[in-house]
């Protein structure tokens, strides 16, 4: 078939298809109701830096509390994690770490009809948020990232996460005692297998920022919920890169001298 004929056929088919297609609606009612096409898809860089974890106003990240409402177990676990000897630096990050870090490693949101997947450049494991209306399984096995289900409340994505194994890095656990920022000098903020995380995510600043309000309910670790807001800037100019943490685990050399 010659190219002009193929083109003519395509035009005819496209014309026929458009005749039967419903006319686009206007206003909010026209928005698709699935997980996709809500504008969350794309690469986002966490706002804030080690020097300025809150980031620039007016959309500022909530700082971790200086005096966390620890239970006795939480306080002890925080002390344990503050010891560099206990820090497993290549451990998976966990969902709170994913969503409350400052701007070193980008996140990528992927939207499918029945799932939203969040990738973090520094973490091999994704956050998988089921959008198909399922509930948390009753016989849920504990896992690093937990089990996440999501639903839309208007343009806000509400994500409910349970089923953690309690072994992820401290939620503010970049580098205990690093003295890089005020936040790093604060107590480690552990989470346990009792963590129940509720997040409300929405686009703000004309869609350029994604806001995530995290409500951290973990009665084993904290006597009351800890609520944080974090912001992520859309960065279509950035592509995600690889990060295989165990490629060259030379942490020992920091304390034992050079050598591979």
């Amino acid at each position: 078939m010659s190219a002009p004929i193929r083109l003519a056929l395509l035009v005819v088919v496209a014309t026929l298809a458009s005749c039967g297609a419903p006319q686009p609606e206007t206003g909010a009612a026209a928005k698709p109701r699935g997980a996709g096409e809500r504008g969350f898809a794309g690469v986002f860089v966490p706002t804030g830096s080690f020097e300025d974890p809150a980031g620039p106003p007016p959309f500022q990240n909530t700082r971790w509390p200086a005096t966390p409402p620890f239970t006795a177990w939480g306080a002890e676990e925080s002390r344990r994690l503050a010891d560099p000897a206990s820090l497993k630096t290549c451990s998976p990050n966990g969902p709170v770490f994913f969503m409350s870090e400052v701007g070193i490693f980008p996140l990528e949101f992927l939207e499918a009809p029945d799932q939203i997947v969040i990738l973090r450049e520094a973490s091999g494991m994704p956050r998988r948020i089921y959008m198909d209306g399922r509930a948390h399984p009753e016989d849920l096995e504990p896992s690093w990232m937990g089990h996440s289900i999501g639903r839309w409340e208007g343009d806000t994505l509400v994500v409910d996460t349970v089923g953690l194994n309690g072994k992820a890095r401290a939620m503010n656990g970049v580098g205990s005692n690093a003295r890089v920022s005020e936040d790093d000098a604060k107590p480690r903020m552990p989470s346990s297998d009792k963590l129940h995380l509720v997040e409300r995510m929405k686009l703000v600043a004309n869609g350029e920022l994604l806001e995530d309000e995290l409500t951290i309910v973990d009665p084993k670790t904290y006597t009351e919920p800890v609520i944080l807001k974090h912001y992520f800037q859309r960065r279509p100019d950035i592509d995600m890169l690889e990060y295989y943490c165990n490629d060259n685990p030379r942490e020992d050399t920091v304390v034992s001298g050079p050598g591979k």
Partner: protein
Amino acid sequence: MKTWASIVIATVVAGAPSLALAHHSFAAFDRSKKVVLVGVVKDFQWTNPHAWIQLVVQDTQGHQTEWGVECGSPNMMARTGWKKGLLAPGDQVVVTVNPLLDGRPNGSLVSITLNDGTVLGPGDAPAPRPLGSSATR
């Protein structure tokens, strides 16, 4: 302290310098001190979670010491101009580090000057953009 012909203990700077290394604690390093090393690259490990430069530094008596110099992650380094091929064994470079507190020859990279004069840091987060500039590629 030994006197290294090719090591300069730089001035003690006021306040901790900005450092975007995030993988682990940097409590082991003396972030108030900068040591300048002039040496020859033995090995460049372009690896996660951190890249490493193994640098051979020679003193006035001809005694050689191998320093381990910890950089950022290749992700953070690539976003500030680094490439794996920028360093090769045999290259003579000038490296500034925050040394280990305990005095062993190991440091956290502050900056490096390559053969061609290029100066690079340890890597960093993606350069921030002001709000209103990120809607398009």
